[in-house]
């Protein structure tokens, strides 16, 4: 919107570029990459060509890559100086997301592993 401003310091997330061709190409490239990554995800999930225990981790990596594609090509989050505020907010959001998810999964997995025996198992009359 403020392409006339030579001192543009900030740009809003999702704001299209100024050039019609380059912004259309940006969306098409993003769509192509996202479709490719989605296709690879579905293929990886159904193939037997990959070592089984590694598939889940591979799918997570593909998902993170696709989220990056969406951020760059659809939301126009870049490393440019006019994007610093958007990137900092995103970085803080990602930090909280990882703290919540990894923290919860870590704690709950240990809790389940260390959970005491069930009441049936504690019934001493049943034990020899």
């Amino acid at each position, binding site marked *: 919107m403020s392409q006339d401003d030579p001192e543009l310091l900030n740009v*809003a997330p999702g704001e299209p570029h100024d050039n019609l061709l380059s912004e259309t190409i940006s969306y098409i490239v993003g769509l192509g990459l996202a479709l490719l990554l989605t296709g690879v995800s579905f293929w990886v*999930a159904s193939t037997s060509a990959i070592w089984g225990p590694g598939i889940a981790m591979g799918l997570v990596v593909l998902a993170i890559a696709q989220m990056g594609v969406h951020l760059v090509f659809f939301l126009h989050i870049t490393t440019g100086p006019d994007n610093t505020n958007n990137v900092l907010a995103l970085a803080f959001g990602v930090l909280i997301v990882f703290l919540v998810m990894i923290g919860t999964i870590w704690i709950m997995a240990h809790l389940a592993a260390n959970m005491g025996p069930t009441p049936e198992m504690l019934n001493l009359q049943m034990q020899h």
Partner: protein
Amino acid sequence: MSASEAAAVGLTHGASEDTGLGHRGPESKSIVVPYGFWLFVLSDIVLFSALFATYASLAHATDGGPASNQLFDRSLVAIETVALLLSSFVCGLAMIAAKRRNMVWTQVWLFVTGALGAVFLAIELYEFAHMISIGAGPQRSAFLSSFFTLVGCHGAHVTAGLMWIGTMMAQVWAKGFRPHIIRRLLCLSIFWHALDIIWVAIFTIVYLIGTLP
């Protein structure tokens, strides 16, 4: 605002006090409003991370009921995924048309965006109805409670987005491309792209990893 007024509220470069807003004063509304909405979207993603963490903790707590790899249909999920991805792409095209104040193409692309979103939502509702009809409703097990909470919360966001798209089509039609309408459109596109990002995590964690052999 005259120069003396600007100095009085601390918006000028020459004044000795630092406003903390840079040398040009606050950014224009066309930057501040979408940035604030970006902060909301990020906090919405944090909300979803809590739902994801809950689902990951409870995914195997099936209480003897159906497990994830007995319930989910990957081909349906593939159609949902492509519909939402195309919807996100077309939303970008609508923003390109809106920036050039092209009424016809803005309306056409917004309609296609909403139609693809409706396809996604219809498939999701069909899936939910089918699961509930075979006794795999949210009250069956902790796994299914967390599944319906996570995926249902995303579906509720898509529903809200569809209503927002309809509202924006009407507002663009009635009010034209005024600055505040353009800002609302930009916020809508941020919201819609973010929903697709969350769906990437859902189809990977819930549907693909959940149906691994």
